[in-house]
């Protein structure tokens, strides 16, 4: 579904990603782990067009989307729940969810049942239901995170990029986020998950990539990575 090949990207003259290749098959949950500053967020930003890649190809369902602008990439079915949540603070929870379906509402993607999907999101994240008419800026961090995920799902995406959905959450909420991700996986949603909780991410994922200083150092089936002594020593020690 999503194939990234020899992706080079960065910020201005600073090159962060040094030729990344990764593959997310349809219906799979792939995780990208690595230490702070390794380039995980940069990878997702390059994929969704928030930064323009210097070179490389990004294939989404057969088309190269490298170099397209963010809104064009979204309209081709790439949803991105960005680092830091980035909900729209002066709009209500309901409006935030509706905007997630913007391409569907404006004819760029199959419309389907937007209203029913909002109800489905609220069933998935019941906390949002009680806060429907509340401004997103007044939600707690955990609630905003759920809103950001729900908003991305409203696209009915081909691929969902999740950047640290557990960041800054209380342990109980982290568990909740992971069980939601497991549920989305059962629903066959194609996902690329960036996580600081490497062990938990590898538990739920099918396949994993380890990013080190802008390069993929190891990759393999999630269970194998989890068993690998090198990965355990570097990434699973503290988080487990």
């Amino acid at each position: 579904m999503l194939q990234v090949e020899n992706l080079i990207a960065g910020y201005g003259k600073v090159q962060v990603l040094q030729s990344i290749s990764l593959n997310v098959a349809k219906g799979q949950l792939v995780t990208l782990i690595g230490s702070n500053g390794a380039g995980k967020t940069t990878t997702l930003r390059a994929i969704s067009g928030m930064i323009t890649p210097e070179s490389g190809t990004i294939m989404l369902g057969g088309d190269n989307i490298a170099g397209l602008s963010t809104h064009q990439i979204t309209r081709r079915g790439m949803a991105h729940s960005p680092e830091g949540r980035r909900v729209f603070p002066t709009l209500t929870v309901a409006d935030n969810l509706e905007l997630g379906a913007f391409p569907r509402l404006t004819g760029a993607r199959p419309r389907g049942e937007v209203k029913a999907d909002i109800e489905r999101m609220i069933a998935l994240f019941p906390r949002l239901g009680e806060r429907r008419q509340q401004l997103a800026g007044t939600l707690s961090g955990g609630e905003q995170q759920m809103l950001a995920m729900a908003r991305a799902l409203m696209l009915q995406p081909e691929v969902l990029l999740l950047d640290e959905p557990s960041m800054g959450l209380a342990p109980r909420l982290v568990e909740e986020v992971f069980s939601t991700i497991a549920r989305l996986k059962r629903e066959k949603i194609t996902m690329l998950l960036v996580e600081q909780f490497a062990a938990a991410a590898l538990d739920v994922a099918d396949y994993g990539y380890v990013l080190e200083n802008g390069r993929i150092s190891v990759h393999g089936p999630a269970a194998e990575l989890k068993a690998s002594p090198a990965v355990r020593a570097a990434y699973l020690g503290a988080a487990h």
Partner: protein
Amino acid sequence: MFEYLLSQLVSPVFWQLIASGVAVGMIYGVIAFGYQLTFATSKTLNFGQGEALMLGALVGLTVAPYTSYWLMLPVVAAFGLLQGSVVERLGVRQAIKIKSEAGWIMATIALGIIFKNLAENIWGRDDLKFPPPISEKPLSFHGVNVLPMELVIVAGAIIMMLLIELFNRRSIYGKAVVATSNDRDAAGLMGINTGLVITFSYALSSLTAAIAGVLVAPVTLTGATMGSALGLKAFAVAIIGGLSSGFGVVVGGLILGITETLTGYYFSTGYKDVPGLLLLLAVLSIKPSGLFGKSAIKKV
């Protein structure tokens, strides 16, 4: 002294001045509302907003004889949309892309001057009389005389701003505009073409100015220079009200409009701009974000 003030409060003249102050103030408010529309989406504004008003009035004056004042409004609106888009494309887009602060300021001022010269060449340098669409006979409310056109100005301005507010709150495209104002990158992730949203906010901003132009034209004189002072005063209003608050700019407009008319009558027309400017200076030194604003002004 006190008795004098009291006697003024019950005099019809005082209330008549308030009424014209409100009408003028609404125009300032509408133009400032336009500044705020583009500032919200792009943190830039069109310093040629006064010229957008002037062009609207002159285009309206040209079109009106062929139809009627009321049928001319949609034509002026369409012209405003077009003119605003041109300003954004030529003067602002590139500056936003390279994050140049001076770029859009210079470019919108320059475009404003070009529009003024253009208007002088097309419509001449003399002020023209805009035929009033409704009776010029004042209506009397308990001895207070109000021009019917003043009521049209106030109603027109309020309707226009309410429609825009309604659009922003209710329609998915309006919500896309608000989303772009909140967080441009995140709006892009929703599939919103934020560049187009910014063009649209410029178009809408010029539309409001152009309509404001045909609203004031019948009570003032119409000509190439009519917009300059209005644009500048509305800018002061935008600063007083706060560039982040649509409500604030209307209140700011009313404050300026009323102080001006009162000063003009009770002191001297020569001093009529002074209180408003003093107020501007006071706001800038005490609450630089504007009376109703968050912290927007530091960016200008």
